[in-house]
């Protein structure tokens, strides 16, 4: 064991790694939680405005992205399950999940482009909203999905690195499990973003 390794057993070390990751994910939930709380408060105070603004989002592109992301999580789960025993399956699954992640980002970019054309983007938007709360809802949408996209990009990089490393210097089981947990969390956050943003239409 390493010089500063404070653990009595490897088992304990693995538990610690996992607990640390869970706590980190807890702090990520609070990060997005602030945005959810803001959206919820806005919904309670200005329900008709939120319903009107939500109606301007593209339900089908958002729905397609939900399916894409859920599928990617299945691949990540299968890949993480195969660690140590079937390295090729792990690589294939993580690559597939990363590709789905990139597809998600592409769809999201398409959505943003359409919203830009409609004048919903901040900066171009001012005249196109009937009220302040409608604009605030749209701005929260951009902030939340943008932050989610940043997280997803990090997740894609993480999966690609793990997949490429598998051949030469496989990552530890804890690293693979934690990366999978991270991916699932980013997925779960989208599962909440989708109804809060897209399905609140009147």
């Amino acid at each position, binding site marked *: 064991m390493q010089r500063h390794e404070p653990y009595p057993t490897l088992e304990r070390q693995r538990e610690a790694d996992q607990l640390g990751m869970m706590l980190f994910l807890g702090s990520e939930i609070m990060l997005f939680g602030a945005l959810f*709380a803001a959206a919820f408060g806005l919904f309670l105070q200005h329900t008709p405005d939120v319903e009107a603004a939500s109606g301007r989002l593209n339900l089908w592109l958002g729905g397609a992205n939900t399916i894409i992301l859920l599928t990617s999580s299945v691949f990540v789960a299968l890949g993480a399950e195969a660690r140590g025993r079937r390295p090729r399956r792990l690589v294939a699954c993580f690559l597939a999940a990363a590709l789905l992640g990139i597809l998600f980002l592409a769809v999201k970019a398409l959505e943003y482009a359409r919203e830009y054309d409609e004048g919903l983007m901040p900066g171009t938007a001012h005249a196109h909203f009937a009220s302040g709360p409608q604009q605030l809802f749209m701005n929260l949408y951009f902030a939340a999905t943008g932050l989610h996209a940043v997280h997803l990009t990090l997740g894609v990089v993480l999966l690609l690195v793990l997949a490429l490393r598998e051949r030469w210097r496989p990552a530890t089981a804890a690293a693979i499990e934690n990366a999978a947990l991270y991916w699932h969390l980013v997925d779960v956050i989208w599962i909440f973003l989708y109804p809060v943003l897209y399905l609140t239409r009147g």
Partner: protein
Amino acid sequence: MNASGEGLHDAPREVDPPRRTPAEASSYIADGYSLRSWFVTTDHKRVAVLYLVSITAFFFIGACAAALIRLELLTPAGDLLTNEGYNRAFTLHGVVMIWFFLIPSIPNVFGNFLLPLMIGARDLAFPRLNLLSWYIYVFAGLFTLYVLLTGGVDTGWTFYTPLSSTYANGHVMAALTAVFIVGWSSILTGINFIVTVHKLRAPGMTWGRLPLFVWAHYATALILVLATPVLTITLILIALERLLGIGIFDPSLGGDPLLFQHLFWFYSHPAVYIMVLPALGVVSELVAAAARKKIFGYWFVAYSSIAIAVIGFFVWGHHMFVSGQSMYASTIFSFLSLLVAVPSAIKVYNWTATLYKGSIALNAAFLFAMGFIGLFVLGGLSGLMLAMLAIDVHVHDTYFVVAHFHYIMVGGAVTAFLGAVHFWWPKMFGRMYNETWGRISAALIFLGFNLTFFPQFLLGYLGMPRRYHVYPPEFQALHVLSSSGAFILGLGYGLPLIYLFYSLRHGDPAEPNPWGATGLEWTVPSPPPTHNFEEVPRVENEPYDYALRHDESIG
């Protein structure tokens, strides 16, 4: 120090203390003297020392800003600083003192140093993450220094919108970046502490045997992990608004300025408990050691830390009583804020009960702890007044509030920090400091502090608003009192720097347990060896099992 050893370290010495004691020769300090050995260390004790040096530096930067403020306020006219300059001075004072001194102070110095020692571990759960969190802190500190050197920022430490997002023209982005980055350091520290307490307790170190210091840090770490990200996202949203025009807070862009206050105080009120909970943990240790008695009501003190952390998440609205929030919300927030007083008072009562019939050692560390209790009670009681709607509307944004939170932050947290320094200094560096000077500085700080901040309660009650540097002449007498107190306080803070430094070379070597205290950290040599324990200890005793000396002291 025990009663018979009283004054031992004040007596003139016959021989100079050895340059290097055997304990020092095999300690974590002797592990390497090169800069590199410090900058790439993952030893929790060394990281603690790195933090000690860096937060002390920031403390003195923040103190200089405070000195400017107090100098300016000596006269009713604004003759030393411009309006803008004054705003920048108090903003810098707030930002530096809160994020670069108070929040990391006790957790990152003493939590880092002591948590593993107290629970019988060889290090924190993630030693490299621990070093990383120091680097993140320093990196954020560089941004702060940049802000300082290029002229500062004038938004106040609260960064209220739309001032910060639209109007302020100082280095707002750099200041936001500094606070954003330092938040990551907090989160990593919090994760590290929680995992350490869960996974690295020595055999026999059950939850009921943890020192109360550990309980307090566990509660603090929960807040660090769960509240800090809310600050992070709030700062991101300001940056998005300022840079990209995504209006979240600015009404002209569709935003809601009150939303900022909700998000900001959702972090910043719990942040108060990040600053004061570790102090409460320190005082629990100091009081038991000074009274040489088992702490009264162990579980009450332990759970009250958790209760403060939990309730602290639900009181943020008391910062917004005059911001136009719903009256019903204000009433609920007022009630919940009063509720925090219960666990805080439990601690104070239990410390008092611990001291009852104890054979109390009046050493410097204990004087700091006593000072803490007095100031914390005053700060807490004035907090109760502020939690009540009728009084708060009257004194909101006056010096009454300034006095209140300085009693908690400075009178409380800083005094406890110094108490911790005096109590664990022999453990950290293996040398005794001059006890007389320690007592003098404890007394100076107590007097100076009260002289500085008690007049501010009166000022606030008479109607002097905070953040003004020009004021009607009738307030001058109280302001002069306050500024002269600040001078004494500054002296009190400067003294320990001198005698503690002096002790590093000239102090008497410290025994493993110079105060006769309980706890695993006192079973290892002073300073501790790199790996803390020769072999992992097996804990068989209850915490604070001081041997009773007198029959009367039972109960």
